[in-house]
């Protein structure tokens, strides 16, 4: 299924940061939603700001509109506040995108674990992300840094414990 752009994507004002506060709020919400669904569709977890500026996400060639860099920064700041984005560097040139927040991932993993009655089992990170057993699951293909955060949130809920196996990380579920 090809990516479905929202109606705003072809609306020229979408690419101008709106001065009216209420309008801007709606506009930014639409941008946040678009960014997350686009990255989810393409299974991207990190973004280079300069690169993404030229991608079809922010540049609609058909209507010849581009979201200016200042506005992109505003959108990213919104995402950061909502917990979906983390800057990797101080200069804010690269960021981690969590189109699903770690807590949400944790929930999915735990659901899978309980569904398959595998609590009290131990898994390596690799197994969870890339094992045959998890193929077809949404969290399959998840990058390890994100899985770690997901498991950390489960750990906080005492539903899991992160352990160090011989030369890799693993987790035990409760």
């Amino acid at each position, binding site marked *: 299924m090809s990516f479905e752009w929202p109606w705003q994507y072809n609306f020229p004002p979408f*690419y101008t940061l709106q001065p009216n506060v209420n*309008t801007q709020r*709606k506009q930014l919400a639409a941008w946040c939603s678009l960014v997350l669904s686009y990255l989810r569709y393409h299974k991207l977890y990190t973004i280079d700001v300069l690169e993404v500026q030229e991608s079809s996400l922010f540049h609609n060639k058909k209507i010849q509109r581009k979201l200016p860099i200042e506005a992109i920064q505003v959108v990213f700041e919104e995402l950061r506040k909502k917990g979906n984005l983390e800057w990797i560097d101080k200069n804010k040139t690269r960021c981690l995108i969590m189109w699903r927040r770690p807590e949400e991932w944790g929930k999915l993993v735990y659901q899978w674990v309980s569904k398959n009655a595998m609590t009290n089992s131990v898994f390596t990170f690799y197994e969870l992300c890339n094992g045959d057993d998890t193929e077809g699951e949404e969290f399959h293909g998840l990058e390890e840094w994100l899985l770690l955060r997901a498991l950390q949130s489960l750990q906080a809920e005492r539903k899991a414990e992160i352990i160090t196996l011989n030369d890799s990380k693993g987790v035990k579920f409760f």
Partner: protein
Amino acid sequence: AAAPGSEPVLVAPGTVMDRFVWASGLLEINETLVIQQRGVRLYDGDDKTKFDLGTVLLSTHRLLWRDHKKHDCCIALPLSQIIFFEEQAAGIGKSAKIVVHLQPVTLNKEPGPYQSSKYSYIKLSFKEHGQIEFYRRLSEELSQKRWERISVSQPMQSPSRSQDECFPSPANVWSDAVLKLYMEEKAFEDLSQLMKKAKEMVDLSKLIANKIKDKQGDISEDETIRFKSYLLSMGIANPVTRETHGSGTHYHLQLAKQLVEMLQVPVEEQGGMMALTEVYCLTNRARGMELLSPEDLVNACKMFEALNLPMRLRIFDSGVMVVQLQSHSEDEMIASAVETVSEKGFVSSEEYAKLVGISVLLAKERLLLAEKVGHLCRDDSVESLRFYPNLFLTQD
């Protein structure tokens, strides 16, 4: 001063206050008072003199100065002594002045207040203003040189005649009135006055001509003629001036009423709103001679509300000022703007101005207003600034 009968002092060229002679302050027969101005100080060249506050009088023959308290302290000099004169603009803490350059003193001059002076000019310092009119009258007298044609003789000494007779007699009042009328008719024969007025008129006409030209592309000839004719029809017989109504609030009050009367139709025809700059041009064009300053216009417009007049001065966020009809409904204006934009899909300020028949400035303000209340949103690209219906809020 040299005593009468003794040898007068011969003075070298370049001296000044010595041109003055003591005078009685009485006008001679056939000498007419042209103008007088209070609050004047005399300078000998650049130096202050003891004649520091008095009335300066201009007659057809002489320039006189009389102390404001001691009326018997009065000095005069013949206009024929004046070579030329010039204005010296006011500065901070300094009054405006007229500098009068004089010929060297004659040998057989009557006694005066000064034996000699090192300057060749005097200054009249106008502490209570009036220098503009005085300057004008002095120019006229010096160009007409009536003293050469009208000979004067000493007035008959009458003990009952008080020193206050420097005030014009009934005969002089009548001739002054006639004189004033004559000079107003001849105002444009003074070339410098003409040039000044002409420039103002030319600037105003250009402004209005351009406006007409801009409209001509889209509106019919009929409408153009109508526009031109209501400009002409706005001639005002008696413009409210500072002289007739004083300055300050009373003046602005009268002005406000006059403005509303004059602007009702043009503002209505423009859709209920007109930029203050346009108002300024229209009113001054109609007034002709007694032009309004921008400050006076703004102050008068600010009084609309207090006077319960059917117009308002309105200032937009951008700082643009407009005069708006009270009956003018803002909601209607916004609704119609949104309707127009929806029909067209999107508009720029210029396009909207053309569609509605108003100035680009007002068109932009209207669109910005609609954006402010959330009915429009903007698309700012390299092509232009455009406004769209605000689908962000309506389409969810």
